[in-house]
């Protein structure tokens, strides 16, 4: 099992969700996030005051998938989230040792 964490642009959430549903990913956690990589902040001056946003609004999607789903999910996210400009986001993959469904004690992939 692999945990897939994708940080994407807010505008791309619906497209990424649809793409993941299409390949059969049923569950995910979506978080409002802020951050930046090489895409630095944004400064706007309004009425003489500077409003600097160092951390840009992003969406973070998390899901744990069976290994055979991972590459398809990564591909789906990449295609749906890409604009080709700085700030499109990143995908991180982490190995997961086990999963437990609290309701019925299912373990491993059957708990996903």
């Amino acid at each position, binding site marked *: 099992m692999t945990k897939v964490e994708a940080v994407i642009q807010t505008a791309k*959430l619906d497209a990424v969700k649809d793409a993941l549903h299409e390949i059969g990913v049923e569950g995910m956690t979506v978080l409002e996030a802020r951050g930046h990589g090489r895409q630095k902040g944004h400064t*706007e001056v309004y*009425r003489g005051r500077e409003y600097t946003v160092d951390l840009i609004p992003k969406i973070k999607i998390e899901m744990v998938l069976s290994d055979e789903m991972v590459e398809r999910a990564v591909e789906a996210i990449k295609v749906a989230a890409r604009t080709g400009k700085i700030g499109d986001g990143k995908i991180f993959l982490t190995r997961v040792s086990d999963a437990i469904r609290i309701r019925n004690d299912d373990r491993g992939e059957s708990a996903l």
Partner: protein
Amino acid sequence: MAAPLSHELRALYSGESARVRDAFQANGRGPEALAARTALVESIALRLWRELVSPDSGGPHDFALVALGGFGRRWLFPYSDVDLLFLHAAGDTEREFKDAVRRFSQELWDLRVKLSPAARTLSECARFDPNNAEFSISLLDGRYLAGDRRLFSHLHERVIPKLVERESRSLLERLAELARERYAKFGDTVFHLETNVKDGPGGLRDCNLVSWIELISHLGKHACWPDEASLLPASVRKQYDPALSFLMSLRCFLHFRHSRDDNTLAWEAQNEAAALHVGMAGPTALSASDWMRVYFGHARTIHRMCVRLLDEIPAAGRSLYRQFQHMRSRVSNPEFLVVDGRIAWQGSEGVREPEVILRAFRFLARHDLRLSSAFESQIEQALPLVCADPPRGIELWHHLQEILIAPHAGAALREMHLLGFLTVVLPEMGQIDALVVRDYSHRFTVDEHTFVAIENLHELRQSRSKWDQRYAELLEEIEQPDLLYLALLLHDVGKGAKGDNHVQASVAIAETCLDRLELDEPDRETVLFLIAHHLELSACLRRDIFDPDTVRQLAERVETPERLKMLCLLTYADIKAVSPEALTPWKAEDIWQLYIGTANYFIRTVDDRFHASMDDEVMAHLLTLAPAAGHKLESFLEGLPRRYLRTHAASEIIGHIGMADRLADDRVQIALSRGRHLYELTLVTRDRPFLFATLAGVLAAWGMNIVKAAAFSNQARIVVDTFYFTDRFRTLELNLPEWERFKSSIHDVLTGKADLEKMLHDRMRSGRTAAPKVEVEPRVEIDDACSTQSTLIEVIGQDRPGFLHGISSIFSRENCNIEIAIIETEGQTAIDVFYLTAGGAKLTTAHQERVRDALMAELTRPQTSR
């Protein structure tokens, strides 16, 4: 105890509990189920008493078993606790029966009855413990079960009445405190989409509260028990009894559904309850939403009774409270008397005129008071008369304006709604009365959401939160906040209509409403615009808010900075009213960033010019409104900045064309009018050096405080300058003849017949300038890239008399032509934006620096020197 009895009781309890359940599921009658379960538990308790304490139910001497709480009231819900009191005459029996009581309790627990036992002596029952007032209150429901009947009678007939007589004030205060704490947990409203039918406002706990308050009040006055049937007046019982029966059935249903003491009325439970007609007299075809409206109707009735009763009970620390209430009574006027925070009408007869009712709600909205019970009844009695000929038109709108902009508008609107008056004057609100819309992020019914949103805007002014303060500043800048509040009131009325698009439905319903209120066309357009676009900013938050295209598209849809401000505030209040958690700091930051990005876009694209040949649609629209204007319209508009068109209504544009037309007779055309907060002066004339600076100077010389201004010129160099100002010395307000002298003075200065410098000198000599409350750091920003034709200069500084005259004179002295000026004042900060040209082109870099130096010298000049 012998095993066979345990087995027998277990079999009895489980068999009879199943029968109670089956009977309820068959007939849905909650009160019957509660009585049956009470009788079952009572019969088991008596068996155990005879087995473990005394073979005779009336024995032993000096020891009795008393049912308390819901058990005492015979309202034993399927999974509720069973409250029992082991009452001893003194400590002897307590020691003697200690073991029997332990075994008695153990047996009930083994049956899975959730027992809450208490053991007290008579003297302990007679004592009031401020830290456990709940026990004294529970004694009010005490009922004899077994043991020494004389001991119980002593408790019931002597100890409790004396205790309550002595401590009635403390008991009532504690009850009120507990209720207020409980209400606060539920946001002080009945109208939760998913609620708790026991503890929520208007729930069963409130039914108890009504009878406890009445009981304590009676015992406190008479030291004897009232006749149960006469505890509540017949008029109250008529509403109380059906509500209680409904709530009993509902809680019973929830207990059986959840198989535990869980009183949450969640979505799924609502679906089932509606399908099973829970609480209804017979089968009905109600949807879950309509069934919830029945629930809210009952809960609202019970909650209102409680609120009225609680109003009679001052909060703890009552001397201060009383003083405060007494102080508030000073707001009484010849029409309304304020006593203890409640408004009574001083008229000699019943209320008949809707005007009186509307004035009462205006009064309430201003002063955060409640209507007295008598006044509420008077209004309710007047409703049929008001319904026959409801108020409408501009007079109704003027009353609503005053209510909407007053600080306690939310409370006033809620009260109007509760009494049915709001739906009489605005029938559109009837569609969302207690309306449940299954949006899982929402916490309240649609009507309550609307009132909370209006409160959110008003509360901005008092808030200490960083976010709220930013938006509070915006709110202060809104020219017509009444329109913003009206849009908020109507923004979701379409949720009660059929169809998927509630925004379109809200607009259609609002159109009818605005027709009835006879709003001016520009005001009507603004309200409809806000309703039609109330989800626009939220939609933008799902895109890249820093993308110039997102900002440009939003600006094009919003059209004017004023509308952007209103939409921003509406969005903020609307999201915050969804639920207390809905407006995350993430969202608040994004709305603000989107707002400032779009506001700056407006400033930086302001010199985009209008050309009749390229703007057929606008021309056609204006020509339909003023067909007689013909070619004059085209020549007047040619070359004017588009912002001019966005910030002026068609009627104003036509007025300006008329003024331009009269320039042949008089080269200076002036119009002066007074708005709600500001005076508006419009000048139409041919452009020339120092024109803007001179006009600003005349206003300063008259002591006027310029709050906003805009200057535009067309291709023919005809300028339209508009100044909005306050009259610091009330010269115009108190002296009508001064209006003409003021206009003549402007005319004379602009035509060279009067000396502006002398006027200014006289004013500065006589005027005393107070020290500024806030120091504003002066700034001059120059942007040479945002316009293709002009150089943008933004000047920020400490506002003071003559500020605008000072800086605009610099531009004239530096041979700059003001193409466009946008002047705003935020508190004591002047924020002025100018689009300048020199010789028909942008300013050179050297020229820009000269202007910057001169401006900084002016901004940092001590206030007194000229």
